[in-house]
């Protein structure tokens, strides 16, 4: 599974959008999150727009554009790969590899943004974001 692709994040979005009943318990979420994966052959960045109970838009962007999201999560590809590997192994993120734990430790993946109110949306919708990322386990199973 190549995580540094728009297709991967679209698959996660499709997974979330196919199960509104699962996200309804958490309620609507309105935020634009961006993920930045640093790698030797060129950085990858993606913007994920949550609206209501859906992910409405996935857009591959430049790192500069990612910074215009409510917040962005910035780290080396290897750290992102470790996070998704853990999700695949456990069905959902575990231990210190949840997105909040990674961002709070800030050693591998950093939570960044210009506006503290935007950055706080990471906390305001954290369970929704975590479940969006945890969808990787189900996407992987579906892909065989």
């Amino acid at each position, binding site marked *: 599974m190549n995580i540094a692709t728009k297709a991967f994040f679209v698959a996660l979005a499709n997974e979330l959008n196919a199960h509104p009943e699962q996200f309804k*318990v*958490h*309620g*609507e*979420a*309105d935020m634009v999150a961006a993920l930045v994966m640093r790698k030797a052959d060129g950085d990858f960045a993606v913007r994920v727009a949550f609206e*209501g109970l859906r992910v409405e838009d996935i857009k591959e962007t430049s790192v500069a554009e990612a910074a215009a999201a409510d917040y962005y999560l910035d780290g080396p590809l290897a750290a992102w790969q470790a996070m998704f590997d853990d999700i695949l192994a456990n069905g*959902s993120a*575990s231990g*210190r590899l*949840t997105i*909040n*734990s990674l961002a*709070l*430790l*800030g050693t591998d993946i950093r939570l*960044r*943004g*210009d*506006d*503290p*109110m935007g*950055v*706080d*949306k990471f*906390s*305001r*919708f*954290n*369970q929704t974001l*975590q479940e969006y990322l945890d969808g990787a386990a189900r996407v992987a199973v579906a892909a065989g």
Partner: protein
Amino acid sequence: MTLTQDQTLTDRGDGDGRYDKLPTVSPLGDALDWKWLKGANTEWGVRPKIGPRGLTMLDIATGSYGVVPDNPTHRSMAPRGADIDPDTPDMGYILNKKSDVWADNVVELYEEAVARQWSATRDIPWGELRELPSDIEHAMCQVCTTLTEVEMIAADLPAKWMWRMNHDFLEAKMFLCTQIMDEARHAEVFRKRALANGGGLLMSRGQSEGLLRTIIEAKSYTQATALMHLLGEGFILDIFRMGELISPSPVEKRMFRMAMQDEARHVAYGTMHIRYAVEQDPDVAEEIHEALDHGEAVLTAFGTNQDFGTALAVLLGGGVEHVETKGFALQADMQRKQFTSYLARCERAGISRLHRTKLPLELLGLDPNTILAN
């Protein structure tokens, strides 16, 4: 916001003469004018557009109904936008300026709070709790004991001021009602966790009470909100984020993530309320600074709460044997992050504390000149 005029509703006529024949006296002998039917002086015929999530408070903030006055003329519970009798009674409100309570995001936050309510009974997978090493279980129980102690201040404080808020600021009061429910649930979930795994409630030695008393005794609501929403809850939000990090099982992880979401709403209201208050009346800034001067000193004293502090350090270190080598160091790192996010929020609120803060920045090796560099 799209408004659609509904012609049948706009017709405020006399109902083809039907209303002329209505009784003018009630069965008990009171005079009747049927004003509500024949033409109350109010906006009629605007119809909000129902959105994909239903009918939100933002949707119904249409026309004059969406206008929140800076200085309401009434002191009663009459609903804003109605045809209000000039002789309505005075309910004793003292927060009668919009800038006393308002925040530009408060309507959105109310809807978000309602949409994202959860149940500490049903939405935490309590059945997945497993026996933990004794030191870890004790530490989690101590953290939950202290959190249970401090949670309800954030319900008592809005409750203390809400009945003093002019009713034209309905949406702000409604948001604070959601906060009160959130705090009840936080007290509930942490109390449940302390008891759920065979542990119990542990030490309470009064070290939290100085902070709680400072918040509840604040002289003005804006001072109180600076102390509670911006300072106190900002720190608690970071504690919840830390709680998620150090959770020994998915049960606590879920608990802290859910609480974190609520807490971030409370902080978002406080930050934007203070910003609004200062924008409307720059003189308020000094009043807020004075409250925070005192509040930061009291919060620093709360930070010396050895029961809470050492329990967090044990969880951060992963057990008592690592508390000195890992726990305390990671805790200092977390405190640096707490101070940084608090000072960033103060900037956003229009109250720069960088060169006035009483927090021990130096002790943690933080430089006010570079602390906010991203």
